[in-house]
């Protein structure tokens, strides 16, 4: 049974979307600038993009790269972060390396990586992988560091091996924090995907966006912005639902993504 107030709370983001679109509509009408279409015109152009076979293939290819890059990054980063959180030597081994690579703009590596391994899927996936890894490692690290020692001692006293303690105690205890990292990583994956395609300009969603800009098809530009923005919002909402299911036991967390590091 959904109460009235929670219904409002659920509908609020939707209302916010409508509100923002309304502001856009009014603003563009007021500006009367030829290169800025109204929200309605842009929305009307969305089906034509999604219906076009070539751009659909491009967008799906982008999403595939993003999924692969994100998946590999998460699979490698969580164990590394957990190990760093539980073992001081591993932590002091990797921490300076991560600190130095943290402010490097990952998508800016694109031109250099392109020189080495070409413009193909591999270079773009690699860049996404690099972008996602750092926040996931960092949050797994923080989560594993905060695990209560007593639980680990109890586990050891019950005869669990170190590996077992890692999987059955540290992993679940750090899960809320890990998922925060994954959520940040997911948004970053999308950002890196779009940026790398804007820089490499060969295929994908970012490329459609800038090609349309070059050719002066302004309603396509804005429609593509709506498509990419909607992807970001949908991924975040879906991940939030997944998170709520996985860590229902943890304290009700802040419902907005806190860190975008």
């Amino acid at each position: 049974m959904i109460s009235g107030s929670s219904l409002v709370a659920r509908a609020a983001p939707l209302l916010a979307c409508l509100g923002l679109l309304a502001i856009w509509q009014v603003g563009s009408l007021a500006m009367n600038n030829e290169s800025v279409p109204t929200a309605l015109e842009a929305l009307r152009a969305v089906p034509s993009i999604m219906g076009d076979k070539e751009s659909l293939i491009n967008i799906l290819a982008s999403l595939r790269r993003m999924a692969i890059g994100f998946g590999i990054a998460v699979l490698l980063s969580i164990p590394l972060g957990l190990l760093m959180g539980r073992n001081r030597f591993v932590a002091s081994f990797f921490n300076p390396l991560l600190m130095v690579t943290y402010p490097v703009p990952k998508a800016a590596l694109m031109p250099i990586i392109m020189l080495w391994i070409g413009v193909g899927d591999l270079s773009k996936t690699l860049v996404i992988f690099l972008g996602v890894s750092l926040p996931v490692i960092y949050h797994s690290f923080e989560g594993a560091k905060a695990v209560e020692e007593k639980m680990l001692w109890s586990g050891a006293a019950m005869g669990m091996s170190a590996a077992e303690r890692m999987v059955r105690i540290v992993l679940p205890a750090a899960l809320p924090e890990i998922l925060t990292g994954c959520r940040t990583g997911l948004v970053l994956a999308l950002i890196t995907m779009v940026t790398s395609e804007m820089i490499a300009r060969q295929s994908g969603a970012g490329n459609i966006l800038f090609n349309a800009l070059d050719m002066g098809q302004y309603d396509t530009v804005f429609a593509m912005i709506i498509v990419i923005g909607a992807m970001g919002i949908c991924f975040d909402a879906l991940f939030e639902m997944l998170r709520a299911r996985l860590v229902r036991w943890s304290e009700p967390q802040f419902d907005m993504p806190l860190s975008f590091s």
Partner: protein
Amino acid sequence: MTARAVTADIVLGLVPLALLVALWQGLVSFGYAPATLLPPPGLVFMRLARQLTTFTFQQEVAATLFRLFTGFSIAVVLGVGIGLAAAASAPVNAIVRPVVRVLAPLPKVALYPALLLLLGFGHESKIVLVAADALFPILLSTYYGASTVEQKLIWSALAAGTSPRAVLFKVVLPAAAPSILTGCRIGLVISCIVVFLAEMITSTDGLGHVLVTAARTFQAVDMFVPLITISLLGLVLNGLLQALRAHLLRGFPEV
């Protein structure tokens, strides 16, 4: 931790960095990578040192820094302001929360073409993009910090006759400072990254533009120089903010 353990940690931490440089040098020296694709590290750093003293390169750095700081300052003012307002007033909160929920996960770079159309190819579009990207971490951590201020502190201040407005600035703002500064640190690094990317996508000056020009002419050495410069800038600014934080938060319990 003893001083000795700290030194051991630092030494251990330098190992992967040294390995990385050694691997880089090794790849070049043993001919796995041609020097045109991967210039040796010595060459890159010498080039960097030489470039940093030339006027044209300094101008590019200045253009980047100007956009970076203007955008970041706008983000700090708006982020702290909106964050505090959302924590202090229920009606503002009711509007800000869902809007932020929608806008925060939106990839801001996708807005860049729209900003180009609206504001042109100059400083403005890049500054707005930087501000938009840095805004949300600052806003969210301000909001989070301000809404978790201990209620007793506020009650005490009110009971002592402080006006609600003064409470906001004298109690809530300082109490939220650690969280706000954490947000600013994240926002600052994001600003560095975003300004560079925006300059790479379309620009006529700035560090990102230097990288793109080098890439067009396949000058690998010149591609590494701006990339290392922006990363160093990020590290230095991050360190400065850390020092500022330590100064501002002296006397706070361990944060």
